[in-house]
Protein backbone atom coordinates (compact mmCIF):
# COMPACT_ATOMS: atom_id res chain seq x y z
CA UNK A 1 0.00 0.00 0.00
CA UNK A 2 2.70 2.39 0.98
CA UNK A 3 4.72 1.65 -2.10
CA UNK A 4 1.82 2.00 -4.53
CA UNK A 5 3.49 5.30 -5.22
CA UNK A 6 2.95 8.04 -7.79
CA UNK A 7 3.49 7.14 -11.44
CA UNK A 8 7.18 6.52 -11.78
CA UNK A 9 9.31 8.32 -14.29
CA UNK A 10 11.07 6.02 -16.68
CA UNK A 11 14.61 5.71 -15.49
CA UNK A 12 17.65 7.26 -17.16
CA UNK A 13 18.73 10.71 -18.21
CA UNK A 14 15.66 12.83 -19.01
CA UNK A 15 17.12 14.21 -22.26
CA UNK A 16 18.04 10.75 -23.56
CA UNK A 17 14.63 9.42 -22.64
CA UNK A 18 12.88 12.19 -24.58
CA UNK A 19 15.06 11.60 -27.63
CA UNK A 20 13.93 7.97 -27.60
CA UNK A 21 10.45 9.03 -28.69
CA UNK A 22 10.40 9.13 -32.52
CA UNK A 23 7.97 12.05 -32.67
CA UNK A 24 10.15 14.15 -30.41
CA UNK A 25 13.23 13.11 -32.37
CA UNK A 26 11.71 13.94 -35.77
CA UNK A 27 10.17 17.15 -34.55
CA UNK A 28 13.40 18.12 -32.85
CA UNK A 29 15.43 17.56 -36.02
CA UNK A 30 13.00 19.63 -38.11
CA UNK A 31 13.02 22.39 -35.52
CA UNK A 32 16.81 22.20 -35.39
CA UNK A 33 17.07 22.61 -39.16
CA UNK A 34 14.69 25.58 -39.05
CA UNK A 35 16.69 27.26 -36.32
CA UNK A 36 19.94 26.54 -38.15
CA UNK A 37 18.57 28.05 -41.38
CA UNK A 38 17.24 31.05 -39.48
CA UNK A 39 20.45 31.76 -37.58
CA UNK A 40 22.92 31.00 -40.36
CA UNK A 41 20.88 32.42 -43.27
CA UNK A 42 23.57 34.96 -44.33
CA UNK A 43 26.18 32.18 -44.60
CA UNK A 44 23.98 29.36 -45.88
CA UNK A 45 22.18 31.24 -48.64
CA UNK A 46 24.20 31.06 -51.90
CA UNK A 47 22.75 34.34 -53.22
CA UNK A 48 21.26 37.58 -51.94
CA UNK A 49 17.52 36.79 -51.62
CA UNK A 50 16.60 40.20 -53.01
CA UNK A 51 19.05 40.19 -55.94
CA UNK A 52 17.11 40.21 -59.18
CA UNK A 53 18.62 38.67 -62.30
CA UNK A 54 16.14 39.63 -64.98
CA UNK A 55 17.95 37.62 -67.64
CA UNK A 56 17.42 34.46 -65.63
CA UNK A 57 13.69 34.37 -64.81
CA UNK A 58 11.77 31.20 -63.96
CA UNK A 59 14.79 28.95 -64.34
CA UNK A 60 14.19 25.34 -63.33
CA UNK A 61 15.95 23.69 -60.44
CA UNK A 62 19.69 23.01 -60.74
CA UNK A 63 20.19 25.71 -63.37
CA UNK A 64 23.71 27.17 -63.35
CA UNK A 65 24.24 27.43 -59.62
CA UNK A 66 20.61 28.07 -58.69
CA UNK A 67 19.91 24.80 -56.85
CA UNK A 68 16.13 25.29 -56.71
CA UNK A 69 15.95 27.61 -59.73
CA UNK A 70 14.75 31.20 -59.80
CA UNK A 71 11.44 33.02 -59.50
CA UNK A 72 9.67 35.41 -61.89
CA UNK A 73 12.14 38.20 -61.07
CA UNK A 74 15.17 35.95 -61.37
CA UNK A 75 15.78 35.72 -57.60
CA UNK A 76 17.41 32.56 -56.23
CA UNK A 77 14.69 30.38 -54.74
CA UNK A 78 16.88 28.48 -52.27
CA UNK A 79 18.22 31.70 -50.80
CA UNK A 80 14.72 33.09 -50.42
CA UNK A 81 13.61 29.84 -48.77
CA UNK A 82 16.47 30.01 -46.26
CA UNK A 83 15.84 33.67 -45.44
CA UNK A 84 12.14 32.84 -45.19
CA UNK A 85 13.00 30.38 -42.43
CA UNK A 86 14.36 33.33 -40.45
CA UNK A 87 11.04 35.17 -40.70
CA UNK A 88 9.13 32.01 -39.76
CA UNK A 89 11.39 31.39 -36.75
CA UNK A 90 11.13 35.01 -35.66
CA UNK A 91 7.36 34.90 -35.69
CA UNK A 92 7.29 31.51 -33.99
CA UNK A 93 9.40 32.74 -31.08
CA UNK A 94 8.25 36.37 -30.80
CA UNK A 95 4.55 35.53 -31.03
CA UNK A 96 4.28 32.19 -29.27
CA UNK A 97 6.28 32.99 -26.11
CA UNK A 98 4.40 36.19 -25.13
CA UNK A 99 1.13 34.42 -26.00
CA UNK A 100 2.07 31.60 -23.64
CA UNK A 101 3.07 34.00 -20.84
CA UNK A 102 -0.09 36.11 -21.11
CA UNK A 103 -2.45 33.14 -21.35
CA UNK A 104 -0.72 31.18 -18.60
CA UNK A 105 -0.71 34.12 -16.19
CA UNK A 106 -4.42 34.78 -16.67
CA UNK A 107 -5.22 31.05 -16.49
CA UNK A 108 -3.31 30.72 -13.19
CA UNK A 109 -5.11 33.70 -11.66
CA UNK A 110 -8.54 32.50 -12.77
CA UNK A 111 -7.94 28.93 -11.66
CA UNK A 112 -6.34 29.68 -8.30
CA UNK A 113 -8.34 32.62 -7.01
CA UNK A 114 -11.70 31.69 -8.58
CA UNK A 115 -14.58 34.01 -7.72
CA UNK A 116 -14.65 37.35 -9.46
CA UNK A 117 -11.25 36.94 -11.14
CA UNK A 118 -12.34 33.63 -12.62
CA UNK A 119 -15.72 34.96 -13.72
CA UNK A 120 -14.17 37.95 -15.51
CA UNK A 121 -11.38 36.03 -17.20
CA UNK A 122 -13.55 33.07 -18.20
CA UNK A 123 -16.25 35.29 -19.75
CA UNK A 124 -13.55 37.18 -21.62
CA UNK A 125 -12.23 33.89 -22.99
CA UNK A 126 -15.74 32.85 -24.03
CA UNK A 127 -16.30 36.08 -25.92
CA UNK A 128 -12.82 35.93 -27.47
CA UNK A 129 -13.12 32.37 -28.76
CA UNK A 130 -16.48 33.08 -30.37
CA UNK A 131 -14.70 34.97 -33.17
CA UNK A 132 -13.15 32.92 -36.00
CA UNK A 133 -9.39 33.38 -35.43
CA UNK A 134 -8.19 33.81 -39.03
CA UNK A 135 -10.87 36.36 -39.80
CA UNK A 136 -10.12 38.18 -36.55
CA UNK A 137 -6.39 38.29 -37.33
CA UNK A 138 -7.01 39.71 -40.83
CA UNK A 139 -9.30 42.39 -39.39
CA UNK A 140 -6.81 43.18 -36.62
CA UNK A 141 -3.85 43.54 -38.97
CA UNK A 142 -5.95 45.60 -41.38
CA UNK A 143 -6.81 47.89 -38.46
CA UNK A 144 -3.38 48.30 -36.84
CA UNK A 145 -1.45 48.27 -40.10
CA UNK A 146 0.59 45.69 -41.94
CA UNK A 147 4.04 44.42 -41.03
CA UNK A 148 5.68 41.70 -38.97
CA UNK A 149 5.05 43.48 -35.65
CA UNK A 150 1.34 43.67 -36.38
CA UNK A 151 1.27 39.97 -37.20
CA UNK A 152 2.98 39.17 -33.89
CA UNK A 153 0.60 41.44 -31.96
CA UNK A 154 -2.42 39.89 -33.70
CA UNK A 155 -1.31 36.37 -32.77
CA UNK A 156 -0.77 37.32 -29.12
CA UNK A 157 -4.08 39.14 -28.87
CA UNK A 158 -6.02 36.28 -30.44
CA UNK A 159 -4.33 33.12 -29.18
CA UNK A 160 -3.77 33.75 -25.46
CA UNK A 161 -7.11 32.04 -24.83
CA UNK A 162 -5.65 28.66 -25.87
CA UNK A 163 -3.24 28.78 -22.94
CA UNK A 164 -5.68 30.44 -20.58
CA UNK A 165 -8.35 27.75 -20.91
CA UNK A 166 -6.03 24.81 -20.45
CA UNK A 167 -3.96 26.35 -17.65
CA UNK A 168 -7.08 27.41 -15.77
CA UNK A 169 -8.47 23.87 -15.87
CA UNK A 170 -5.18 22.36 -14.70
CA UNK A 171 -4.81 24.96 -11.95
CA UNK A 172 -8.32 24.17 -10.71
CA UNK A 173 -7.32 20.53 -10.49
CA UNK A 174 -4.07 21.36 -8.71
CA UNK A 175 -5.92 23.65 -6.29
CA UNK A 176 -7.58 20.61 -4.71
CA UNK A 177 -4.38 18.63 -4.22
CA UNK A 178 -3.27 17.83 -0.69
CA UNK A 179 0.11 19.47 -1.15
CA UNK A 180 -1.58 22.78 -1.91
CA UNK A 181 -3.58 22.46 1.33
CA UNK A 182 -0.32 21.60 3.08
CA UNK A 183 1.27 24.76 1.70
CA UNK A 184 -1.71 26.84 2.80
CA UNK A 185 -1.60 25.53 6.38
CA UNK A 186 2.15 26.15 6.38
CA UNK A 187 1.23 29.81 6.12
CA UNK A 188 2.66 30.40 2.65
CA UNK A 189 1.24 33.35 0.71
CA UNK A 190 -1.03 32.72 -2.30
CA UNK A 191 1.49 34.10 -4.80
CA UNK A 192 4.26 31.94 -3.33
CA UNK A 193 2.03 28.88 -3.59
CA UNK A 194 1.15 29.73 -7.20
CA UNK A 195 4.77 30.23 -8.20
CA UNK A 196 6.35 27.33 -6.35
CA UNK A 197 3.68 24.66 -6.06
CA UNK A 198 1.41 25.13 -9.05
CA UNK A 199 3.59 26.55 -11.83
CA UNK A 200 5.97 23.53 -11.87
CA UNK A 201 2.93 21.30 -12.32
CA UNK A 202 1.43 23.22 -15.23
CA UNK A 203 4.76 23.88 -16.94
CA UNK A 204 4.90 20.61 -18.97
CA UNK A 205 1.44 21.38 -20.31
CA UNK A 206 2.45 24.93 -21.24
CA UNK A 207 5.53 23.57 -23.00
CA UNK A 208 3.40 21.26 -25.15
CA UNK A 209 0.99 24.07 -26.01
CA UNK A 210 3.90 26.39 -26.76
CA UNK A 211 5.27 23.99 -29.35
CA UNK A 212 1.87 23.73 -31.01
CA UNK A 213 1.42 27.50 -30.82
CA UNK A 214 4.70 28.01 -32.70
CA UNK A 215 3.28 25.95 -35.57
CA UNK A 216 0.10 28.00 -35.51
CA UNK A 217 2.08 31.26 -35.52
CA UNK A 218 4.07 30.14 -38.58
CA UNK A 219 0.85 29.31 -40.43
CA UNK A 220 -0.86 32.56 -39.46
CA UNK A 221 2.14 34.55 -40.67
CA UNK A 222 2.07 32.62 -43.98
CA UNK A 223 -1.65 33.28 -44.38
CA UNK A 224 -1.25 36.98 -43.72
CA UNK A 225 1.75 37.16 -46.07
CA UNK A 226 -0.25 35.31 -48.67
CA UNK A 227 -2.96 37.96 -48.59
CA UNK A 228 -0.28 40.66 -48.46
CA UNK A 229 -0.91 41.85 -44.89
CA UNK A 230 2.40 40.84 -43.35
CA UNK A 231 5.94 41.88 -44.26
CA UNK A 232 6.52 43.80 -47.55
CA UNK A 233 6.08 41.62 -50.61
CA UNK A 234 9.67 41.51 -51.85
CA UNK A 235 10.91 40.28 -48.46
CA UNK A 236 11.39 36.52 -48.58
CA UNK A 237 8.54 35.17 -46.45
CA UNK A 238 7.11 31.75 -47.24
CA UNK A 239 3.53 33.00 -47.46
CA UNK A 240 4.54 35.73 -49.88
CA UNK A 241 6.53 33.25 -51.97
CA UNK A 242 3.47 30.98 -52.20
CA UNK A 243 1.38 33.93 -53.38
CA UNK A 244 3.96 34.83 -56.05
CA UNK A 245 4.39 31.22 -57.11
CA UNK A 246 0.66 30.82 -57.53
CA UNK A 247 0.68 33.32 -60.42
CA UNK A 248 3.18 31.27 -62.43
CA UNK A 249 2.22 27.83 -61.12
CA UNK A 250 1.58 26.50 -64.65
CA UNK A 251 4.98 27.48 -66.03
CA UNK A 252 7.05 26.94 -62.87
CA UNK A 253 5.30 24.80 -60.22
CA UNK A 254 8.46 24.39 -58.11
CA UNK A 255 8.31 28.06 -57.11
CA UNK A 256 5.10 27.47 -55.20
CA UNK A 257 5.97 23.92 -54.17
CA UNK A 258 9.23 24.81 -52.37
CA UNK A 259 7.81 27.23 -49.76
CA UNK A 260 4.71 25.05 -49.34
CA UNK A 261 6.86 22.04 -48.50
CA UNK A 262 9.00 24.11 -46.14
CA UNK A 263 5.85 25.32 -44.37
CA UNK A 264 4.42 21.82 -44.24
CA UNK A 265 7.62 20.34 -42.81
CA UNK A 266 7.92 23.07 -40.18
CA UNK A 267 4.35 22.81 -38.92
CA UNK A 268 4.39 19.02 -39.05
CA UNK A 269 7.68 18.97 -37.14
CA UNK A 270 6.37 21.31 -34.46
CA UNK A 271 3.15 19.34 -34.06
CA UNK A 272 5.05 16.05 -33.84
CA UNK A 273 7.27 17.58 -31.19
CA UNK A 274 4.21 18.79 -29.28
CA UNK A 275 2.48 15.41 -29.51
CA UNK A 276 5.62 13.58 -28.44
CA UNK A 277 6.17 15.89 -25.49
CA UNK A 278 2.54 15.48 -24.49
CA UNK A 279 2.87 11.69 -24.51
CA UNK A 280 6.06 11.83 -22.46
CA UNK A 281 5.05 14.50 -19.98
CA UNK A 282 1.42 13.63 -19.39
CA UNK A 283 1.94 10.89 -16.77
CA UNK A 284 3.64 13.48 -14.58
CA UNK A 285 0.46 15.52 -14.59
CA UNK A 286 -1.84 12.67 -13.67
Amino acid at each position, binding site marked *: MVDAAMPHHATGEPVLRLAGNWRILTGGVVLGLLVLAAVAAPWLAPFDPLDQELSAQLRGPAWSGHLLGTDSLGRDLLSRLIWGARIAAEVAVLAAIPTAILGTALGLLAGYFGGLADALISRLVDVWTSFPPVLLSIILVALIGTGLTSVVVAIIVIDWTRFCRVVRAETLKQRHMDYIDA*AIVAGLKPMTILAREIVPNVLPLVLVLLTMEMGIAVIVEAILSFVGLSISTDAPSWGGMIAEGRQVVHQAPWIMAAPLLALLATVLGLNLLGDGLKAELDPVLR
Partner: protein
Amino acid sequence: MSPVLAIERLSAVTGDTALLRDVSLDVAAGEVHGLVGMSGAGKSMIAKAVLGVLPPAVRVTSGSIRFEGTEIAGLPRARMRQLLARGIALIPQDPLSALNPTRRIDAQMTDVMRARLGLGAAAARERALALLDEVQVREPASVLRRYPHEISGGQRQRILIAIAFACAPRLIIADEPTTALDVTVQKQILRLIDDLRRRHGAAILFVTHDLGVVAKICDRISVMHAGVILEQGAVADVMAAPQHPFTRALFAATPRHDRPELDLRPVPDALQYAVSVPR
Protein backbone atom coordinates in the same frame (compact mmCIF):
# COMPACT_ATOMS: atom_id res chain seq x y z
CA MET B 1 -2.23 26.74 33.23
CA SER B 2 -4.36 27.93 30.35
CA PRO B 3 -4.78 25.48 27.48
CA VAL B 4 -2.95 25.87 24.16
CA LEU B 5 -6.16 25.26 22.30
CA ALA B 6 -9.62 25.91 23.65
CA ILE B 7 -12.68 25.20 21.53
CA GLU B 8 -15.92 26.32 23.13
CA ARG B 9 -19.44 25.44 21.99
CA LEU B 10 -18.41 25.45 18.34
CA SER B 11 -21.19 24.89 15.82
CA ALA B 12 -20.87 24.76 12.05
CA VAL B 13 -23.30 24.11 9.22
CA THR B 14 -23.27 23.56 5.50
CA GLY B 15 -26.57 24.51 3.93
CA ASP B 16 -29.20 23.03 6.29
CA THR B 17 -26.99 20.26 7.65
CA ALA B 18 -25.32 20.63 11.01
CA LEU B 19 -21.70 19.46 10.89
CA LEU B 20 -20.62 20.41 14.40
CA ARG B 21 -22.93 21.01 17.34
CA ASP B 22 -21.73 22.70 20.51
CA VAL B 23 -18.32 21.11 20.37
CA SER B 24 -16.11 21.95 23.36
CA LEU B 25 -12.62 20.61 23.66
CA ASP B 26 -9.31 21.80 25.01
CA VAL B 27 -5.72 20.74 24.64
CA ALA B 28 -3.30 21.60 27.44
CA ALA B 29 0.34 22.45 26.76
CA GLY B 30 2.33 19.29 26.07
CA GLU B 31 -0.79 17.14 26.07
CA VAL B 32 -1.87 14.65 23.40
CA HIS B 33 -5.60 14.83 22.97
CA GLY B 34 -7.22 12.07 20.92
CA LEU B 35 -10.26 12.91 18.84
CA VAL B 36 -11.95 9.67 17.82
CA GLY B 37 -15.07 8.75 15.92
CA MET B 38 -16.22 7.04 12.77
CA SER B 39 -15.86 8.50 9.28
CA GLY B 40 -18.03 11.56 8.85
CA ALA B 41 -18.26 12.26 12.56
CA GLY B 42 -16.80 15.73 12.08
CA LYS B 43 -13.26 15.07 13.33
CA SER B 44 -11.62 16.56 10.26
CA MET B 45 -14.03 19.51 10.34
CA ILE B 46 -12.64 20.43 13.76
CA ALA B 47 -9.08 20.10 12.46
CA LYS B 48 -9.90 22.29 9.45
CA ALA B 49 -11.66 24.87 11.63
CA VAL B 50 -8.59 25.17 13.87
CA LEU B 51 -6.31 25.55 10.84
CA GLY B 52 -8.67 28.10 9.28
CA VAL B 53 -9.18 26.08 6.09
CA LEU B 54 -12.85 25.19 6.26
CA PRO B 55 -14.34 24.71 2.79
CA PRO B 56 -16.17 27.82 1.51
CA ALA B 57 -19.56 26.08 1.85
CA VAL B 58 -19.07 25.51 5.59
CA ARG B 59 -20.09 28.29 7.96
CA VAL B 60 -19.30 28.59 11.67
CA THR B 61 -22.54 29.65 13.33
CA SER B 62 -21.43 30.06 16.92
CA GLY B 63 -18.73 29.32 19.42
CA SER B 64 -15.07 30.16 19.68
CA ILE B 65 -11.66 28.69 19.00
CA ARG B 66 -8.85 30.19 21.02
CA PHE B 67 -5.19 29.50 20.46
CA GLU B 68 -3.08 30.57 23.44
CA GLY B 69 -5.90 32.89 24.43
CA THR B 70 -6.30 34.52 21.00
CA GLU B 71 -9.59 34.07 19.19
CA ILE B 72 -8.83 32.47 15.81
CA ALA B 73 -12.29 31.57 14.51
CA GLY B 74 -12.93 33.92 11.60
CA LEU B 75 -9.49 35.50 11.80
CA PRO B 76 -8.50 37.19 8.48
CA ARG B 77 -6.22 35.09 6.26
CA ALA B 78 -3.24 37.39 6.66
CA ARG B 79 -3.43 37.24 10.48
CA MET B 80 -4.00 33.48 10.40
CA ARG B 81 -0.83 33.02 8.31
CA GLN B 82 1.16 34.54 11.16
CA LEU B 83 0.03 31.71 13.43
CA LEU B 84 0.40 28.81 11.02
CA ALA B 85 3.60 26.73 10.99
CA ARG B 86 5.10 28.60 13.96
CA GLY B 87 2.07 28.31 16.21
CA ILE B 88 -0.06 25.56 14.73
CA ALA B 89 1.23 22.94 12.27
CA LEU B 90 -0.32 19.98 10.49
CA ILE B 91 0.77 16.41 9.96
CA PRO B 92 -1.41 15.44 7.00
CA GLN B 93 -3.23 12.18 6.50
CA ASP B 94 -1.88 10.91 3.21
CA PRO B 95 1.90 11.10 2.75
CA LEU B 96 1.51 10.02 -0.88
CA SER B 97 -0.37 13.13 -1.93
CA ALA B 98 0.81 15.73 0.56
CA LEU B 99 4.13 16.28 -1.21
CA ASN B 100 4.29 18.02 -4.58
CA PRO B 101 5.33 15.41 -7.19
CA THR B 102 7.24 17.91 -9.32
CA ARG B 103 9.50 19.36 -6.62
CA ARG B 104 12.51 17.99 -4.81
CA ILE B 105 12.24 17.24 -1.08
CA ASP B 106 14.87 19.91 -0.53
CA ALA B 107 12.67 22.70 -1.91
CA GLN B 108 9.55 21.48 -0.14
CA MET B 109 11.24 21.33 3.24
CA THR B 110 13.05 24.64 3.03
CA ASP B 111 10.08 26.65 1.66
CA VAL B 112 8.35 26.77 5.03
CA MET B 113 11.50 27.61 6.98
CA ARG B 114 12.51 30.37 4.59
CA ALA B 115 9.04 31.89 4.48
CA ARG B 116 8.12 31.51 8.14
CA LEU B 117 11.44 31.63 10.01
CA GLY B 118 13.19 33.97 7.59
CA LEU B 119 16.12 31.61 7.17
CA GLY B 120 18.52 31.94 4.23
CA ALA B 121 18.93 29.12 1.72
CA ALA B 122 22.00 27.62 3.38
CA ALA B 123 20.63 27.86 6.93
CA ALA B 124 17.31 26.34 5.87
CA ARG B 125 19.10 23.45 4.19
CA GLU B 126 21.18 22.83 7.26
CA ARG B 127 18.07 22.78 9.42
CA ALA B 128 16.36 20.43 6.94
CA LEU B 129 19.30 18.03 7.27
CA ALA B 130 19.15 18.20 11.07
CA LEU B 131 15.38 17.60 11.03
CA LEU B 132 15.69 14.60 8.70
CA ASP B 133 18.29 13.21 11.04
CA GLU B 134 15.91 13.74 13.94
CA VAL B 135 13.06 11.88 12.21
CA GLN B 136 15.53 9.06 11.49
CA VAL B 137 15.63 9.31 7.72
CA ARG B 138 18.73 7.52 6.49
CA GLU B 139 21.13 9.38 4.15
CA PRO B 140 19.38 12.74 4.61
CA ALA B 141 21.63 14.52 2.11
CA SER B 142 20.66 12.16 -0.68
CA VAL B 143 16.96 12.18 0.30
CA LEU B 144 16.95 15.98 0.01
CA ARG B 145 17.90 15.73 -3.66
CA ARG B 146 15.08 13.32 -4.51
CA TYR B 147 11.55 13.64 -5.77
CA PRO B 148 8.67 12.29 -3.64
CA HIS B 149 7.99 9.32 -5.94
CA GLU B 150 11.54 8.09 -5.40
CA ILE B 151 11.06 7.38 -1.69
CA SER B 152 8.73 5.13 0.29
CA GLY B 153 5.50 6.15 2.00
CA GLY B 154 6.97 5.74 5.47
CA GLN B 155 9.92 7.95 4.56
CA ARG B 156 7.55 10.52 3.13
CA GLN B 157 5.51 10.59 6.32
CA ARG B 158 8.75 11.13 8.26
CA ILE B 159 9.52 14.07 5.98
CA LEU B 160 6.05 15.53 6.54
CA ILE B 161 6.52 15.15 10.29
CA ALA B 162 9.87 16.93 9.98
CA ILE B 163 8.14 19.75 8.10
CA ALA B 164 5.44 19.98 10.79
CA PHE B 165 8.07 20.34 13.53
CA ALA B 166 10.31 22.62 11.43
CA CYS B 167 9.11 25.90 12.88
CA ALA B 168 8.79 24.67 16.48
CA PRO B 169 4.98 24.93 16.74
CA ARG B 170 3.18 24.80 20.11
CA LEU B 171 0.27 22.82 18.69
CA ILE B 172 0.26 20.09 16.06
CA ILE B 173 -2.87 18.82 14.40
CA ALA B 174 -2.21 15.20 13.43
CA ASP B 175 -4.95 14.25 10.96
CA GLU B 176 -4.93 10.44 10.94
CA PRO B 177 -1.18 10.44 10.23
CA THR B 178 -0.88 6.66 10.24
CA THR B 179 -4.02 5.67 8.34
CA ALA B 180 -2.35 5.48 4.92
CA LEU B 181 0.63 3.47 6.20
CA ASP B 182 1.50 -0.19 6.64
CA VAL B 183 0.80 -1.56 10.10
CA THR B 184 4.50 -2.16 10.69
CA VAL B 185 5.36 1.40 9.70
CA GLN B 186 2.45 2.82 11.72
CA LYS B 187 4.03 1.79 14.99
CA GLN B 188 7.37 3.42 14.19
CA ILE B 189 5.67 6.62 13.07
CA LEU B 190 3.61 6.78 16.25
CA ARG B 191 6.69 6.34 18.40
CA LEU B 192 8.46 9.02 16.38
CA ILE B 193 5.64 11.53 16.82
CA ASP B 194 5.54 10.80 20.55
CA ASP B 195 9.32 11.23 20.85
CA LEU B 196 9.40 14.48 18.96
CA ARG B 197 6.53 16.12 20.79
CA ARG B 198 8.15 15.29 24.14
CA ARG B 199 11.46 16.75 23.02
CA HIS B 200 9.91 19.85 21.45
CA GLY B 201 7.18 20.29 24.05
CA ALA B 202 4.38 20.53 21.51
CA ALA B 203 0.75 19.69 22.25
CA ILE B 204 -1.04 17.44 19.79
CA LEU B 205 -4.63 17.16 18.71
CA PHE B 206 -4.59 13.61 17.39
CA VAL B 207 -7.46 12.89 15.00
CA THR B 208 -7.97 9.19 14.44
CA HIS B 209 -10.50 6.39 14.21
CA ASP B 210 -8.01 3.88 15.57
CA LEU B 211 -8.55 3.26 19.27
CA GLY B 212 -5.34 1.26 19.47
CA VAL B 213 -3.45 4.41 18.51
CA VAL B 214 -5.32 6.41 21.12
CA ALA B 215 -4.44 3.94 23.86
CA LYS B 216 -0.74 4.15 22.97
CA ILE B 217 -0.14 7.84 22.62
CA CYS B 218 -2.98 9.98 24.05
CA ASP B 219 -3.46 11.51 27.48
CA ARG B 220 -7.08 12.45 27.02
CA ILE B 221 -9.75 11.48 24.56
CA SER B 222 -12.91 12.97 23.03
CA VAL B 223 -15.34 10.54 21.42
CA MET B 224 -17.29 12.12 18.65
CA HIS B 225 -20.28 11.16 16.58
CA ALA B 226 -22.49 13.06 14.14
CA GLY B 227 -20.91 16.39 15.01
CA VAL B 228 -21.34 15.98 18.76
CA ILE B 229 -18.78 15.12 21.43
CA LEU B 230 -20.37 12.29 23.38
CA GLU B 231 -17.75 11.59 25.96
CA GLN B 232 -14.53 13.17 27.14
CA GLY B 233 -11.95 12.23 29.73
CA ALA B 234 -8.59 10.70 30.57
CA VAL B 235 -7.82 7.81 28.23
CA ALA B 236 -7.45 5.29 31.04
CA ASP B 237 -10.83 6.23 32.54
CA VAL B 238 -12.76 6.23 29.29
CA MET B 239 -11.20 2.97 28.17
CA ALA B 240 -11.82 1.29 31.49
CA ALA B 241 -15.38 2.49 31.96
CA PRO B 242 -16.95 4.05 28.87
CA GLN B 243 -20.10 5.94 29.89
CA HIS B 244 -21.86 6.53 26.61
CA PRO B 245 -23.44 3.54 24.78
CA PHE B 246 -21.84 4.72 21.54
CA THR B 247 -18.38 4.69 23.10
CA ARG B 248 -19.00 1.19 24.37
CA ALA B 249 -20.18 0.09 20.92
CA LEU B 250 -17.13 1.70 19.32
CA PHE B 251 -14.78 -0.13 21.67
CA ALA B 252 -16.62 -3.39 21.05
CA ALA B 253 -15.99 -2.89 17.32
CA THR B 254 -12.23 -2.57 17.82
CA PRO B 255 -9.94 -5.61 17.91
CA ARG B 256 -7.90 -5.88 21.12
CA HIS B 257 -4.59 -7.66 21.28
CA ASP B 258 -4.84 -8.03 25.04
CA ARG B 259 -8.33 -9.61 24.92
CA PRO B 260 -8.32 -11.86 21.83
CA GLU B 261 -11.20 -13.90 23.23
CA LEU B 262 -13.64 -11.02 22.70
CA ASP B 263 -15.79 -11.11 19.56
CA LEU B 264 -15.92 -8.02 17.38
CA ARG B 265 -19.32 -6.40 17.03
CA PRO B 266 -20.15 -3.67 14.52
CA VAL B 267 -21.62 -0.45 15.90
CA PRO B 268 -25.41 -1.04 15.80
CA ASP B 269 -27.37 1.05 13.30
CA ALA B 270 -29.69 2.28 16.03
CA LEU B 271 -26.73 3.86 17.82
CA GLN B 272 -25.19 5.21 14.63
CA TYR B 273 -28.32 7.15 13.82
CA ALA B 274 -29.59 7.86 17.31
CA VAL B 275 -27.72 11.12 17.70
CA SER B 276 -27.77 12.27 14.10
CA VAL B 277 -31.00 14.23 14.19
CA PRO B 278 -31.01 17.26 11.86
CA ARG B 279 -30.53 20.65 13.41
